[in-house]
């Protein structure tokens, strides 16, 4: 099914007090998708969300909501609602009145309000809490009220501004699942702002990486993680071992680079030429280490010494030191089947390689 674009952002610029916050943003949000705006603080993601909410106006450019120019839409016609970072629940109103606020603004009939609010509170599992004031609720409950208050308006897009950032780790994990389930149940598009890459990867259908007011990359979590477009996306999302190298030889299909004295032939998917400087990225979980005794053929391996062993339960994380002093991160999964021995001791000499083709080659950026 070809999903239609529920929001289109065209050539949006926003500057504030002479400072460029958003620099030519083009973006589409598809109906029913969970889209995440991901970036470090100050990258403009919250500003972009506020433009969508209509709380601020772009300096130039166009926002199309459901086929109509947002400028021509009144707040009621926008059908976009927001869950604020600090929830912004009305402290003087109880849960029911908070959720009913938007419906009352629309002049809905009392009976309809009662019915919709009750239904909504059941959906976020807050039935029976109608009479409580926000300060009498836990963080997670407040969060759910904030969601209910926005969702009861039946928006076509729900905007969420770092809604999980003030919750503790365990609650945040639970709310991630709950939000995802809610989004599936409602079938509406969510535009979610976060600076937490793990959150973005685990919840989104599509991730938009913003840096310094620009869209650096948009794609599925897997795209973004496995084929980052540049070195800053790669380092922002997940950990990487990075080698800065020059290309020894290149043709249309392949390049040859030397890592730790060993020449590797890799795919040339970036039209690299001989002499180009590149970043060679290998994710920690793709970096393989072997005990000396395990290995006979060391022709495509380089040596290292175990510097640190961190037991994490499901994985063992290692920090290994190459002869030139470079430190690499390695994540080894416990795998009962292949019988690999993942017990390492600090100071142990090991051999290192990675599955050829799982690396990422990016043009060098200073």
């Amino acid at each position, binding site marked *: 099914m070809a999903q239609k674009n529920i929001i289109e952002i065209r050539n949006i610029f926003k500057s504030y007090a002479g400072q460029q916050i958003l620099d030519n943003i083009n973006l589409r949000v598809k109906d029913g998708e969970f889209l995440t705006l991901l970036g470090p603080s100050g990258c403009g993601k919250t500003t972009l969300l506020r433009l969508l*909410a*209509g*709380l601020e106006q772009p300096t130039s450019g166009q926002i199309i909501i459901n086929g109509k120019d947002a400028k021509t839409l009144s*707040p*009621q016609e926008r059908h976009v*609602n*927001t869950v*604020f*970072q*600090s929830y*912004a*629940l*009305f*402290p*003087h109103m109880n849960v029911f009145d908070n959720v009913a*606020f*938007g419906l009352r*603004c*629309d002049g809905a009939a009392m009976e309809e309000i009662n019915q919709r609010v009750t239904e909504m509170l059941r959906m976020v599992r807050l039935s*029976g*809490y109608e*009479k*409580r*004031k926000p300060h*009498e609720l836990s963080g997670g409950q407040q969060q759910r009220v904030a969601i209910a*208050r*926005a969702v009861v*308006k039946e928006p076509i897009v729900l905007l969420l501004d770092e809604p999980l950032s003030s919750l503790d780790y365990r609650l945040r994990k639970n709310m991630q699942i709950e939000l995802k389930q809610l989004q599936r149940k409602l079938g509406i598009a969510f535009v979610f702002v976060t600076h937490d890459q793990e959150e973005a990867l685990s919840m989104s259908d599509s991730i938009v990486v913003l840096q310094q007011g620009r869209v650096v990359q948009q794609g599925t979590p897997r795209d973004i993680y496995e084929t980052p477009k540049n070195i800053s996306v790669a380092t922002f999302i997940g950990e990487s071992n990075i080698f800065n190298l020059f290309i020894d030889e290149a043709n249309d299909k392949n390049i040859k680079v030397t890592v730790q004295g060993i020449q590797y032939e890799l795919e040339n998917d970036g039209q690299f030429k001989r002499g180009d400087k590149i970043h060679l990225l290998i994710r920690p979980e793709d970096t393989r280490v072997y005990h000396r005794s395990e290995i006979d053929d060391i022709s495509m391996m380089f040596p290292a010494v175990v510097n640190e062993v961190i037991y994490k339960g499901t994985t063992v994380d290692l920090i290994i030191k190459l002869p030139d002093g470079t430190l690499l991160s390695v994540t080894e999964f416990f795998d009962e089947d292949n019988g690999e021995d993942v017990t390492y001791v600090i100071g142990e000499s090991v051999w290192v390689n990675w599955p050829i083709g799982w690396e990422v080659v990016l043009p060098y950026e200073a």
Partner: protein
Amino acid sequence: MKHKFQYFSVGLITAWLCLFGLLSFLVMLTISFLQHDLDRIAVWHFTLQNYIDLFDPIFFKIFLKSFYIAFLVTAGCLLLGYPFAYIVSRLPEKVQNLALLLLLLPFWTSSVVRTYAMMSLLKTKGLLNAALLSMGLIHEPLQILFTNTAVSIGLIYNLLPFMILPIYVNLERFDVSLIEAAKDLGAKYTTIFRKVIIPLSMPGILGGCTLVFLPAMTLFFISDLLGGAKALLLGNLIEDQFLMANNWPRGAATSVLLTVLMAIGLLLYWSKTNKRVDYEAVT
């Protein structure tokens, strides 16, 4: 060390209030139950006569009128003060401080002096009348001085900061995201103001009203100067009884009655705002 300082400062304030607040109130309370005597302050003889005297229709009238003026003054201060406080609280911080400084600057001059200045503004041949006459807005000078209007203007002028400051303090801390949330939910500005801003600034409004209402009934020098002999506030009544009639017990009884009325008002407010929510009932 820190604890010692805390005890010291709290202790000092407590002692100060006990000595000059509680003790003097207790003295007044005692005197109010004693018999009036022309030669001495009072005679050591218990009586309720001073309170019974207050039910005289003349006193009752003064009470009522004083309440009425205080009410007008409070309403006037609120109408002038709230928008001012709201606008100032939305200004950039530096401008805010300047605005507050300008607000408080006149109060570095004695309020008696400023009230005399107001007399010269309001009098028949004063600046206000001269200006209005020269603009052709009126043909005869207005008689403002020595009326209730003059007293109200004087009181509003003097008490305005006491209304503005508590409201400003409240609005300055106002969480802007609440306004944005209301906007996001489709509220019009009037709705936001009525349903979100006003209710949440209620503590500031009530604080300001309390700070204005009581002085508005008792700032006797303002009605002395601007109201002439016509406008008598409760403060003037108390003043007269102590200083002119030399009747301390009745003056004391009047003060005590005023204090009790104010206390009842505050208690009503408290019982309304401090309603405990039943946590158990929900679960």
